[in-house]
């Protein structure tokens, strides 16, 4: 119901405000409605039966206050199975001060820049495919890594002397500093709780830093990108009773106190706290030639945490023990898109994600303990067709063939005994119609 109220509000506000304020405030918006179906595995809730719980809508207001100062705000709501649920949020709300071409300054809620396409995640009308390659752009991260409160600096520079321009090309940079709302119910919170085999109860994020550098070398159509981001995070809850914690207990005892009887210690369903940071290192390139665009990106996530477990010495003595925890996940994709006519564009990509760089084959090591081997990877082959009815309206049809389920439980909660009921190979079909003005 809230969805329809929001849609009607978009239309009414757009009409009335456009008439009232002439051209001083620019109003734009978008609505998209999708459909998802999988042959096996619940990609989102009810996807095996087909689901329409897959939509986005946004409405933004922009105005130029002075020659240097620009204000903009965008309201956004989306639904993706259990994520979003059409809750209206502020996508961005910021004041932008343009000083020179090499420096503009933005304060407020900024969209978080990530890779070549990260900040287009909500903008279905921009990209050729419905889903961004999940190896680098996990769907589950969109609800908390999209926006950050804080500051942003950006600009671009090229040498003034033409002979150096021919050698060095052009440089663009974006530096963001702020805080993202990563609550325990968010995608990142869920993914980390899953990696830590923990029922999360609280979470808190620290100030994040994000730096992106783009270089357009003197090769027409080529753009190179490099990114580094880091944010601190604290998550706590209770350990799950599964093989992951049993094996950690056995490892710890054999290393530190081999004489202690393992039966006298419990490490399941006890308080645990994770305090540390996540780093993201990304690099990639995009090359466009006429209507053909080819891109590649690779990302590595470094999780570096201190785990404090209140180990229970039976019957009732607890002893907090802190141990380091490191896990690196990696992902990459290569993608091409081609506009064949004004109304038809198609694209394809191959995307790979490994949640544990040390266990790409699924040997049950580290975070993948107690899960089928195919939860150690996810390889997604996608073919997508986009039909543009006009500049404002498009329909996309897309098929995915997936090998592995590493990101399946990012969006849907799977109980420990349900992991072996999943299928390694599965298909996903998606359709989406979008309108923007």
């Amino acid at each position, binding site marked *: 119901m809230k969805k329809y109220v929001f849609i009607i509000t978009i239309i009414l506000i757009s009409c009335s405000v456009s008439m009232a304020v002439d051209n001083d405030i620019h109003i734009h918006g978008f609505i998209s409605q999708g459909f998802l179906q999988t042959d096996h595995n619940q990609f989102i809730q009810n996807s095996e039966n087909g689901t329409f719980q897959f939509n986005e809508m*946004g409405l933004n207001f922009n105005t130029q206050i002075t020659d240097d100062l620009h204000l903009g705000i965008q309201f956004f709501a989306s639904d993706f199975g259990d994520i979003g649920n059409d809750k209206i949020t502020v996508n961005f709300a910021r004041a932008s001060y343009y000083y020179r071409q090499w420096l503009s300054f933005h304060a407020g809620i900024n969209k978080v820049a990530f890779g070549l396409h990260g900040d287009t995640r909500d903008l279905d009308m*921009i990209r050729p495919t419905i889903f961004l390659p999940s190896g680098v752009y996990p769907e589950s991260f969109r609800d908390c890594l999209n926006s950050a409160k804080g500051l942003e600096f950006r600009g671009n520079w090229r040498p003034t002397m033409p002979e150096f321009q021919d050698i060095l090309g052009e440089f663009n940079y974006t530096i963001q500093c702020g805080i993202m709302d990563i609550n325990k119910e968010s995608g990142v919170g869920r993914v980390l709780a899953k990696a830590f085999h923990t029922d999360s109860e609280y979470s808190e994020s620290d100030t994040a830093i994000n730096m992106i550098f783009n270089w357009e070398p003197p090769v027409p159509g080529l753009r190179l990108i490099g990114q580094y981001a880091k944010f601190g995070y604290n998550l706590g809850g209770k350990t799950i009773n599964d093989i992951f914690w049993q094996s950690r207990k056995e490892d710890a005892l054999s290393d530190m106190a081999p004489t202690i009887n393992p039966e006298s210690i419990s490490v399941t369903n006890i308080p645990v706290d994770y305090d540390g940071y996540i780093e993201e290192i990304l690099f990639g390139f995009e090359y466009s030639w006429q209507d053909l665009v080819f891109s590649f990106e690779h990302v590595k996530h470094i999780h570096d945490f201190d785990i404090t477990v209140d180990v229970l010495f039976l019957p009732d003595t607890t002893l907090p023990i802190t141990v380091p925890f490191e896990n690196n996940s990696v992902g990459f994709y290569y993608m091409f898109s081609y506009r064949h006519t004004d109304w038809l564009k198609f694209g394809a990509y191959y995307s790979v994600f490994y949640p544990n760089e040390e266990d790409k084959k699924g040997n049950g090591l580290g975070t993948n303990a107690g899960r089928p081997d195919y939860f150690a990877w996810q390889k997604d082959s996608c073919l997508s067709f986009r039909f543009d009815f006009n500049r404002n309206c498009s329909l996309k049809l897309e098929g995915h063939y997936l090998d592995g389920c590493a990101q399946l439980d990012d969006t849907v909660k799977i109980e420990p005994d349900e992991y072996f009921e999943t299928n390694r190979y599965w298909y996903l079909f998606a359709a989406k119609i979008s309108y923007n003005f």
Partner: protein
Amino acid sequence: MILVRKPHLKSFMAILLIWVLFGISVNESRCQEPVFIGSPDIFESTLTKNDIKDIFMGKKKKWAGGKAITLTVNDQADLQKNFTKAYLRKTPAQFINFWKYQIFVGNGNLPKFFTDENQLIDYIEKSEGAIGYISTEPSKEKNLRRFTVSD
């Protein structure tokens, strides 16, 4: 556990790639060089190709005198295609997509699009700091800045 046989996806992708490579159009639209015009209050009379790229890609937002740049786009298909290809290294669809992206990430306002060139000329003449491109030399009766483009 049900295992689904892996399809011959690589073969399908290869066929698609061949279709793309052979399907890329070699037809060029009729060569129509854009003529750059601006509001009479603009100080500059010469722009480099990089200036034009920066202005139309929203990177350069102020004139040398500090006045904000008001961007207009001539929406005539052939002219727009030639302009975006020669100066921005983009197709018209990529150019429009780029500006939609700018709006929806909060980086600025959409340029004003005109399908009627006379309306575009009138708008630039009456606005402050406006720039645009047209298909022919403007009438001498119009009070406009005619930009010379250098490399």
